[in-house]
């Protein structure tokens, strides 16, 4: 089959690879019809998450059709239209029983790296490097999904493909960001990052009772979407001092809840940003913390900072003093999508949520390297490029295609 593979830092290529088959009794094989790029892939592609090997298939947010199920799979049948939560959960261990699905004890067959780095081994993630299990990704014609009854969800009638696709990752991640923030009626919520996850967090904040939502980014198109589609008040950090603006917009209180949907490759302005960026390039620290530091500094006293952006390692100048002296709550985690999928389908069916506008650039899988290129450099107002493995140009191996760093 055709698959989009990583071949080195900023080098992607469409290859022919063997079709997957059932490897365990709880597996399902899904024929992929749509597979989205995700901001977190950029950290893999650009080499900030180590443990990638040449030939690894990328992609973890997808929609497709079940073509085969293992002998122990109960709730799924051939022909079902499905999405998958890519942070794999076994459903049986104590964290899974607690519904902390992304803390699953069993789904990572290669636990050594995360155990060494984080103290305890972390869950396996589809298409997310050998540190998270080495599972093959979804930018391919077929994919094997383990523990299918726990991680694969049938898409109900009345939910369109391009809506359902994002219920696998962007929507539950954004929703969890808002959920962990502990929003109460009347709260002002600030969201850093207007990518797909940020957009979903903003809409979710309203669904959970926020009175106002403030969106922070630097791209006009994304800020416009945040205003038009999610009902947020846009703030361009290249035009205003974010801290000053937030304090002023909240009558001197600061936002009640701050949600970081940016992560380790944050962009910013001023000397602190360039200090971060230089240190990161010298590999003296792994995170660029502009967005998170801003969130912690702006957050109201006794407020909550919810971190959904992907961070992988260590950050300098982490403002622990602001957390202590303002009595902040910091919450985080990879998405426990399995908690939220049904609720999100419900919101979509009720017309309260429509993630389909995230899909700006559908294209054949053969154009994968180009898709990541325009997504990474935000060309042509690209919010999400989505590959359609069943469609378009015939399978052929393409020459390596550079992604700008």
């Amino acid at each position: 089959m055709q698959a989009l593979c990583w071949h080195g830092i900023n080098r992607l290529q469409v290859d022919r690879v063997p079709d997957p088959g059932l490897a365990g009794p709880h597996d399902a094989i899904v024929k992929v019809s749509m597979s989205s790029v995700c901001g977190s892939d950029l950290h893999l592609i650009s080499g900030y998450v180590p443990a990638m090997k040449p030939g690894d298939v990328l992609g973890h947010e997808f929609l497709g059709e079940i073509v085969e199920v293992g002998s122990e799979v109960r709730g799924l049948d051939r022909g079902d239209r499905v999405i998958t939560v890519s942070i794999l959960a076994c459903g049986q261990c104590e964290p899974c029983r607690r519904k902390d699905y992304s803390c699953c004890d069993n789904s990572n067959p290669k636990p050594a790296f995360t155990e060494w780095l984080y103290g305890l081994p972390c869950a396996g993630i589809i298409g997310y490097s050998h540190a998270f299990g080495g599972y093959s990704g979804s930018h391919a014609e077929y994919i094997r999904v383990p523990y299918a009854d726990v991680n694969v969800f049938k898409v109900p009638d009345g939910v369109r493909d391009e809506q359902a696709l994002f219920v696998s990752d962007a929507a539950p991640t954004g929703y969890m960001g808002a959920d962990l923030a502990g929003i109460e009626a009347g709260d002002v919520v600030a969201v850093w990052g207007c990518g797909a996850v940020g957009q979903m967090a903003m809409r979710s904040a309203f669904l959970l009772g926020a009175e106002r939502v403030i969106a922070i980014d630097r791209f006009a198109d994304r800020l416009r979407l945040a205003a038009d589609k999610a009902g947020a008040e846009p703030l361009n950090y290249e035009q205003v001092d974010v801290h000053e603006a937030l304090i002023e917009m909240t009558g001197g209180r600061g936002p009640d809840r701050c949600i970081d949907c940016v992560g380790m490759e944050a962009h910013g302005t001023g000397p602190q940003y360039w200090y971060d960026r230089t240190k990161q390039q010298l590999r003296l620290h792994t995170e660029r913390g502009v967005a998170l530091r801003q969130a912690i500094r702006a957050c109201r006293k006794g407020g909550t900072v919810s971190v959904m952006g992907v961070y992988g390692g260590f950050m300098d100048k982490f403002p622990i003093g602001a957390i202590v002296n303002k009595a902040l709550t910091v919450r985080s985690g990879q998405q426990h999508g399995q908690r939220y999928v049904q609720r999100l389908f419900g919101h979509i069916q009720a017309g309260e949520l429509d993630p389909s506008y995230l899909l700006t650039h559908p294209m054949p899988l053969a154009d994968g390297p180009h898709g990541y290129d325009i997504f990474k450099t935000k060309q042509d107002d690209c919010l999400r490029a989505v590959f359609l493995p069943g469609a378009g140009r015939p399978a052929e191996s393409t020459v390596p295609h550079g992604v700008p760093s």
Partner: protein
Amino acid sequence: MHDAYFKPHGQPNVHGMERMGSALAGTTLAAVALRRGGAAGMIGLLAAAGLLGRAVTGRCAVKRMLQPSAYEREIAREHGWKRASATAPSVTINRPRDELYRYWRDFSHLGGFMEHIEQVEVLDDTRSRWTVKAPMGQTVQWISRVTEDRPGERIAWETEAGADVPNAGWVEFRDAPGGRGTEVHAMLAYEPPGGELGRLAAKLSGREPGMQARSDLRRFKQLMETGEVASPATWAPA
């Protein structure tokens, strides 16, 4: 047991002649390194600092890491071995004690989650023949005998005379607090082949059976909780 298993930190472990030797070697190396200069000189100087450090403080972290622990010495004494390499991993499994005990007690199951076991053949109620993968495509064999069997709580075993690699182990099943299933504590020890050199080589290469024990327990957990061992394979193993 655990007090003895964990090697104490910060206790002086370099004494007498060894300590004086370290001081002498450190001083000499520092002098040579300073005269020589350059990159080699820098490295020599760092090594000299290490030697002088262990002479001044009487403590050496490297030696502590490589030395047998008090617990390993105790096990060697207990089993009449020259030396022992031991490990004591633990894992919490969200299943009842009895179920885990029953699965483990049938030693023919061990090959399903212990990576280096080729086969365990059960000979009778207490004896079993183990075939285990060894470095360079070799296999080693032994016959193990159950020495203690407390249903639902503890199984202990050791090899009979004539084992290729004399070894012993036990596993305990304890209720985890808060209804979280069972804490499984295991201990695996063996007499390293190739004497002290063999023990050090195994330790440094990370290949020693003890290092595998924790991943083996993790696979036991996967198997007991989910019914399969996790794998990124895109095909069923042939």
